[in-house]
């Protein structure tokens, strides 16, 4: 009997093991096509970028010909333009992200009341996001032109002078932030609105019973409950903003001087205009690594914030 039990157990184990194996095969057979495509379209370009960043590139064959170690990295360390573009990108991010987050959540909070047509207004918010960035940059460039633009014509009616939005090095960065904010604040508003609508109503009703005023409810209930969403939205926007390229290309082309020459534009120019592909690959790797480190830090910060609330 014991022998029978044992052999029955072994048979069951073999059957289970066969089932597990078959399950594994069937799972992977579904995943494999996607995994291969992902590897081809994501991993290969990244690995190729790494490879040519450590090599000299033969323009006659477009292949990495000679391993040069960190030579390309040493080259970019001494490239004033690259470090300036990193600084410019930092300035842009430091202004654009907080403004978009504050405006986005602020507007969402203010419009988060029941009123007729709210859905239509929310749909209208999508318009800036679906306009191609190059088109947005071009249209803003026309609107802000001191000679023909309607913005300065309007400011002139109010006696507010004729600012050179795209020609003044300081104002040009502000202009980029304005265009980017116009384009991306609605995205933050949409997420924030959805988050606000999902907040538990009973907590607010309890606060009302306790006599809490709107400020107390905002500071002590709404914001703490929204912290995970705020943090997640910030990370999503950060990853989008760090790729800033097309709006700058269409509106200022990185100028005047190098006032708005963000790092992606600089890398593009070095690669496709100057044909310095190896050095550009090294720059791209530096930017990728820095972005990953900062994103990691933001994610850690997000988790801590979530825990503290």
């Amino acid at each position, binding site marked *: 009997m014991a022998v029978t039990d044992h052999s029955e157990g072994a048979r069951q184990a073999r059957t289970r093991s066969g089932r597990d194996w078959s399950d594994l095969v069937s799972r992977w057979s579904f995943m494999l096509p996607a995994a291969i495509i992902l590897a081809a379209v994501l991993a290969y370009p990244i690995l190729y970028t790494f490879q040519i960043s450590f090599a000299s590139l033969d323009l006659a064959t477009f292949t990495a010909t000679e391993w040069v170690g960190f030579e390309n990295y040493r080259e970019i360390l001494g490239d004033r333009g690259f470090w300036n573009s990193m600084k410019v990108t930092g300035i842009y991010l430091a202004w654009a992200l907080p403004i978009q987050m504050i405006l986005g959540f602020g507007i969402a909070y203010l419009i988060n009341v029941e009123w007729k047509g709210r859905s239509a207004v929310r749909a209208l918010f999508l318009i800036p996001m679906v306009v191609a960035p190059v088109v947005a940059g071009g249209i803003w460039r026309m609107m802000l032109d001191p000679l023909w633009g309607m913005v300065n014509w309007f400011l002139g009616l109010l006696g507010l002078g004729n600012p050179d939005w795209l020609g003044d090095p300081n104002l040009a960065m502000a202009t980029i932030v304005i265009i980017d904010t116009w384009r991306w604040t609605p995205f933050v508003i949409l997420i924030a609105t959805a988050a606000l609508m999902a907040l538990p109503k009973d907590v607010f009703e309890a606060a009302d019973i306790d006599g809490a005023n709107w400020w107390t409810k905002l500071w002590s209930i709404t914001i703490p409950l929204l912290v995970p969403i705020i943090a997640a939205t910030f990370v999503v926007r950060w990853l989008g903003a760090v790729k800033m390229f097309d709006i700058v290309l269409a509106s200022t082309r990185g100028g*005047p001087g190098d006032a708005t020459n963000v790092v992606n534009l600089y890398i593009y120019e070095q690669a496709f205009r100057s044909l310095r592909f190896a050095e550009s690959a090294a720059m791209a790797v530096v930017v990728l690594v820095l972005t990953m480190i900062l994103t990691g830090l933001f994610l850690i910060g997000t988790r801590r914030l979530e825990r503290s609330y």
Partner: protein
Amino acid sequence: MKITLQVSGIAIAAVMAGPAAVWAQGLGAEGSPVEITMIANEAFANQWQEQMVPEFQKVYPHINVVIDGVPYTELLAKSMLDATGPDPVYDIIIADDPWTPQLAQTGVLLDLKGEQVAGWTAPEFEWDDFYAAPLAASEWQGVQYGVPLRSNLLLMFVNKSLYEKAGLPAPTPELTWEQFFEQAPQLVQDTNGDGKVDAWAVDTYFLRDPLTPTIWQTIMNSNGGALLGEDGKAAFNNETGVAALETHKRLLEFAPPGAVSHGFNESLQAFRQGQVATMFTWGSVFKGTAVDPATTTLTPEQVGIQVMPVGSASAGAHRGIWSGVINNKSENAEAAWALLQWLSSKEGEAWQSNTLGVFPARRSTLDSTPESEWMAPVFEALKQGYEVAEQGQMWRPRTPKSDAVQQVLADEVSRALSGQIAAQEALDTAASRIDRLLD
């Protein structure tokens, strides 16, 4: 005209035909046409496909031509990538002025004066008929890789009406930079009497763009300066270079508000709307600026065209030539050369000039009377422009790293024009970056 063209074309074809077998393989035959492909700037690729190709096929009915238009910013990289591949798609590349050295360095271009092509070239083609400056655009290290197909020069456009309103005589090609700046304050004017300035003296390239330094370069060249010295190192960070950059910057004092962010499109728009008295830009826009009412408010009588003002050495004119080159791996090299040869022949050039308004590069064409009256002053400006460009070597750097050099100049010239740094510092920085690049 068409009959003459066809007869001449057939004559060229007959001379080139040689043995019947070569004709059948190289230039196609009834029932077995040859197809050649070309990569070109999207700005004119469509015009060529729709108008030039049918005209060409009147002469070579068995050669089909497919032209792919690519945005300018991607054209060089795509051309290089394709040309250097094992099985290139394009038989012909239409290369911008500074690109021949880069393409030639990769060893993919056919020598158009070599033995093989010479056998396909009609005797009446006459290489010597081309002005030296446009032909030199597609020459590199003593080898002729291309022919000029769409020639261009940076020239000075003049709104004669605004000069007249300011009480000034219309400028002539003898105008010096000193005279230009003497007259400039009067050209910043209120033309409709409402008390507000509505017309300015000048507009041109000021924004951060690889073509912006060409204005500074032309001013420098016309004062005897050079971009690179005999040793191939930067030779512009000196008194002449700095003075030229300050001259370029001084133009902003007489330009419309916001001009520091103006480039090709904005300056063209300002001039066509009658808001600026002069514009330094590519001559090829003349038709759309002076003739075509769909694109301009001005008329041919109002618009003058001439070389840029005279410096201490000569007048100014910066070269910008689109040349046709052939991939030496092309299996249809003979047919490709038939197209380039026809398009740059006396007949083809005259057809292109009269029908499409494209600027010629041949002496015979420029000495002829154009069919359109408005072309006559353009021809005069081009003839003088080619001479001064040749004399002052007024072109972008002739090196395989030309675009990289031009990008460095764009960065630093823009910093100087926007007032971020002084002209001397900008040129010193550019010189040091360029020397490192070319080392």
